[in-house]
């Protein structure tokens, strides 16, 4: 997996299509990831992607593969990549069977914890707030647990604060519901 994702700066001088191609080997070229705990990038708002790429470059968000991938990127590189990634189509919701009772529980939790206010009622995100509709369920669970444990400090403090009081059972239901939104 690491090898598959390993990046070479050889693509440095290529077109944006050539340079962004290695991203797709992990994240999927249609905006949908098929890899465990690797996020789908389709239709992520460009300002959000830019922030994450920046955090990876500055090592404010630590993940060896990603820190290495954007090492040496200029500010313009980050902007170009963010714009290109944001134009991928949104990932389709997971095709797995859906439990209506759990969906109802998840929907109630989205309102209870007010996810919908920043991520939008359809969870498609906006500006610096990511799209979580149709995101990989395992990635959502992992990310929420990291925010809760202060492993992922985030750009500002918002998500760490939001997750502190949310029990793990609710994290699972929130991820379940969100992953199944179109």
């Amino acid at each position, binding site marked *: 997996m690491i090898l598959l994702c390993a990046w070479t700066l050889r693509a440095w001088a290529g077109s944006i299509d050539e340079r962004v191609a290695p991203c797709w080997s992990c994240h999927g070229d249609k905006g949908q990831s098929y890899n465990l705990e690797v996020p789908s990038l389709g239709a992520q708002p460009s*300002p959000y992607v830019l922030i994450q790429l920046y955090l990876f470059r500055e090592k404010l968000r630590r993940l060896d593969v990603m820190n290495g991938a954007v090492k040496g990127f200029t500010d313009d590189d980050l902007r170009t990549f963010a714009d290109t990634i944001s134009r991928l189509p949104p990932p389709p919701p997971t095709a797995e069977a859906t439990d209506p009772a759990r969906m109802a529980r998840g929907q109630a939790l989205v309102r*209870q914890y*007010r996810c919908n206010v920043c991520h939008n009622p359809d969870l498609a995100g906006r500006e610096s707030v990511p799209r979580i509709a149709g995101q990989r369920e395992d990635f959502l669970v992992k990310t929420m647990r990291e925010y809760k444990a202060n492993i992922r400090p985030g750009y500002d403090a918002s998500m760490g604060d939001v997750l502190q009081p949310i029990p793990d059972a609710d994290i699972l239901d929130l991820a379940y519901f969100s992953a199944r939104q179109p």
Partner: protein
Amino acid sequence: MQRAGISVARLAASIGLVGLLVAAATARLQAQQAAEPPPPWKQGQAAGIADSNLAPIAPPPLPTAPDKLPLDKLKTKPGFKIEVYTAGVPNARTLRLGDKGTVFVSSRVQDKLYAIVTKDGKREVKVIASGLHRPNGIALHKGTLYIAELYQISKIEKIEDNLDNPPKPTVILGDLPKDEPHGWKYLTVGPDEKLYFQIGVPCNICMPPERHGKIYRVGLDGKGLEVYAYGIRQVVGMDWHPTLKQLYFSENSRDWLSEDVPEDKLNRVTQPGKDNFGYPYCHQGTFTDPEFGWGHSCSEFTKPIALLGPHSAALGLKFYTGNGLGNEYRNVMFLARHGSWNRSVKIGGDVVTIRLNGDGTFRSMEPFITGFIQNNNYVGRPVDVLPMKDGSLLVSDDYNGAVYRVSRTGASVAGK
């Protein structure tokens, strides 16, 4: 806090059954909040606006290119000009001046501190510290740089002699609370040569834990920590009156109560160790909180000396003691209003001048730099102000990662 105990006793004794019912309702509401707490910046939000999109505005991570800065949008008063001092200072927040002319700049969503050095007419931005956690608060005193991160205060001695290879900061005060909401700090050194900083409340509106909601002071060696002022939601700017030597500070008021109240405040400490500015009981010195204010009166608390606009996010402030801007600006306070997010029609996004009477009370406020809000959107957001030795005024902008400079246009008015 002590007042909580007093208020419950007073409620029960003087209001009797009604008071108990109110207390019970409050307790129920608090229990409900404990069961399903909203994000801190959403606490206290009414149900009817749950679908509002008034979320905090994250600054872009990359500084704006020099030629894309909104200089043509920024307006100042006749007889003054505004120019770019330095572009490319990511998330530029607090500004401080070294004895040898170095301008120090802090950041809040980055992990770095910067020094702007002018050499042979060219300006250079140097990173002087990195790996810091929300290092918003910085202060300089006798050659030493003091740094307030979210949960500790540290220092680098002789910083201006070591700008190219500064040593790591030495921690002088650690173990401060690690709450992220309002956890970032403002830092200043008082006339008593002590460090002043705040521990903000970890919420929008709540009964703060014992250590929160206060201004503290501590010796330059990190010893002798004591409370300087009480009942404060979050301090976002501080400075000392040039002649009265009293501490003036800006305080941002609670959100989600309404579009127009409460306003942010300009406060002054006249009774060190005693002044209580009212949070969470009383807002803007004039009305009690709909949840926490019961059993209280605003007369119990120290009133603000001025109201600075609803949600306007009044931040950095400085008394101007130079003369390069003209005598009419001597001892006038400059104050940066970052601009609102919790309001449909944005307000603030400017630098204002505040004039005081001889006794330090408020006389007037007027705009000095405007234009950061265009068509209800931000083209920049001012954070802090810094008077320079040549009489000009620097202004930081964390949205664009830039520092601007304001000065008189002609020599004819400079000596006015």
